[in-house]
């Protein structure tokens, strides 16, 4: 174990190296680029024993790693924003093939206008594709979760691809101390690759031709949903094991901060959950408000059970979304409310749309939102407005 200052992007590259990935194919896009560059350098210097395919687009990046994975090796790619959108079709295909594969997505705004700052629209727009999706809070979690994803996606109970996200700049380019696990420890944690089938010369299996029986095809889809369900357990297990090996547990599908006695909850995901922790401390320590934070670590599979468990008796819930589905609300909000309602949990829930297009949100902003929300709910027992746009700052 070595403590080193790493950006989120270098944390990803380091994890890829430690996972002994064999094929990397990536296409540059700000702010993912330093991942590509680092990996290219590692391959060139022999630090990483892998093939690097310098593809001509993200579509081909995903296609190439898919081909490699289908051929039986661990494969990795990374992208962001428009690059992620450009490989949309491939994402569905890879998941439908049940091919384990790991990708890092640096979340970034979608244009127009061109904008390189963080925003979760890119990744949220892929939530139906059948990939596991995890959000990380800092470089350490980025590194750890990237490694875990290899284990999780290659677990025979899952066999689905997975995405680790890190927010543009505030994570991808921000340097901070990271514990880098030893290779031997990683080797102990990551078993040799398993996958549902491998393409080899002489073994005529055929993947993907049209179905005779449409019901069978529908069952193929249902099976993906079942794998997502099972992944919940697998994710917990990976966290347990990693915790045992390194002493670091980040949580399973969610991580709850000061929730035990909390009455009011923040729900959020990604980089700003760090700021939310600061806000929680501030609200508790300065105002004596019983506020807790539910950090959604995995958006897919969606942590309905966790949310229900924690929010069962919440007096109020504020869901911060860093993206919005025009004509509806923030995706995290929609699914949180839907999960709670399905189980009869009736806490008032409010959606704060903030931080889109990279707009900065400080702990003080979050505290202010919570102070106002708590006041409102304590007065009215409900929120006046379900959804608000919040720009923060002065």
């Amino acid at each position, binding site marked *: 174990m070595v403590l080193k200052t790493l950006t989120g992007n270098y944390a990803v590259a380091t994890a890829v190296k430690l996972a002994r990935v*064999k*094929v990397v*194919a990536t296409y540059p896009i700000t702010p993912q680029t330093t991942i590509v560059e680092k990996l290219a350098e590692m391959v060139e210097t022999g630090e990483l024993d*892998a*093939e690097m*395919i*310098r*593809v*001509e*687009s993200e*579509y*081909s*990046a995903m*296609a*190439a*790693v*898919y*081909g*490699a*994975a*289908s*051929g*039986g*090796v661990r*494969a990795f790619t990374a992208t962001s924003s428009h690059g992620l959108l450009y490989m949309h*079709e*491939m994402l569905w*295909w890879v998941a439908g093939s049940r091919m384990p594969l790991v990708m890092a997505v640096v979340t970034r705004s979608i244009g127009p206008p061109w904008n390189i700052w963080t925003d979760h629209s890119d990744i949220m727009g892929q939530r139906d594709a059948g990939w596991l999706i995890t959000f990380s809070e800092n470089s350490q979690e980025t590194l750890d979760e990237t490694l875990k994803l290899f284990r999780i996606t290659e677990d025979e109970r899952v066999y689905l691809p997975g995405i680790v996200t890190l927010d543009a700049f505030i994570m991808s380019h921000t340097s901070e101390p990271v514990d880098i696990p030893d290779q031997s420890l990683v080797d102990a944690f990551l078993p040799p690759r398993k996958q549902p089938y491998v*393409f*080899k*010369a*002489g*073994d*005529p*299996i*055929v*993947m*993907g*031709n*049209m*179905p*005779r029986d449409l019901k*069978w095809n529908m069952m193929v889809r249902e099976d993906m949903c079942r794998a997502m369900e099972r992944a919940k357990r697998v994710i917990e297990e990976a966290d347990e094991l990693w915790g045992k090996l390194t002493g670091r547990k980040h949580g399973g599908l969610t991580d709850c901060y000061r929730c035990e006695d909390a009455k009011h909850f923040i729900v959020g995901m990604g980089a700003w959950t760090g700021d939310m922790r600061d806000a929680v401390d501030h609200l508790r320590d300065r105002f004596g408000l019983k506020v807790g934070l539910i950090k959604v670590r995995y958006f897919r599979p969606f942590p309905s059970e966790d949310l229900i468990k924690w929010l069962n008796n919440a007096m109020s819930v504020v869901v911060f979304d860093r993206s919005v589905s025009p004509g509806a609300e923030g995706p995290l909000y929609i699914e949180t409310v839907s999960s709670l309602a399905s189980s009869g949990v009736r806490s008032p829930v409010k959606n704060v749309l903030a931080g889109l297009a990279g707009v900065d949100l400080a702990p003080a902003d979050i505290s202010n939102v919570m102070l106002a929300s708590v006041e409102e709910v304590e007065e009215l027992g409900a929120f006046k407005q379900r959804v608000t746009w919040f720009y923060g700052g002065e």
Partner: protein
Amino acid sequence: MPISIKDLPKEKYVLPGDTACPGCPENMGLRFVGMALGGKVILVIPAGCTSIIQGLAPGSGLNFPILNVPFASSDAVAAGLSAAKKILGEDAVVVAWAGDGGTADIGFATLSGSAERNDNIIHICVDNEAYMNTGIQRSSQTPLGAWTTTTVGGKKERKKDLPLIMLMHRIPYVATASVAYPIDFIEKLRKASTIRGFKYIHLHSPCPVGWRFDPMYTVTVAKLAVETGMWILFESEDSKVSISPSSRPYLDKSKRKPVKEYLSMQGRFRNVTDEVLKEIERQVDENWSTLLKLAA
């Protein structure tokens, strides 16, 4: 040493009872791939007639390992697969088998990118000069004057010259082939499989359904394309171009059959005017002359 029909392997890679139309040139081409490379091959196949030819899951009418992939992705998938096999030290010839649409249109950036990187794969463009699987729409490979459902008055533009475009990519191997000349195709395939890097083979594949001729004449029409000089068989190793034996006689323009003979066998050219016919003839000459310049 030339291959003789007698020595070709008998194993069936296209199984009786698959879903190809009667007289299908893609089925023929797949059989030749089997004869040439047999069990060494892994096919990566984007959307197109060959997706259908395989028949319905859980069965397959094709006896190869086949990874079906999205329309624009085949060469990149093949590149990844080939890289994996290299790392694993496994022997395999990874072949992207794509229609003219999957090759020259939607998938062209993917193809060109893979060629530039010199990925170790063979790309075979099975060219039936239209989007057949969706019901005969024009592609960039549809020739001037040909009817399709999206060019009901005949296509206005010229067939994009993909073999020459690939030649300009300066990849280790480029060749044209035709389903009417299986031995030539098989020889080219075998040669390609011994070369490291990106290999491109463009297989002319007359389709009875889309070109509107009796399925009996798939081979006849394919042969006429060569005999009229409409389709030139050549190969290029390391950018050294040579006209293949079957096309060599037609270096001499007077040996070529009239283009009209080729067109008149096909319903799709029914409404070609004299003017368009002349232009097609001019293009044939131009194609020969460009190719010969490059072969010089």
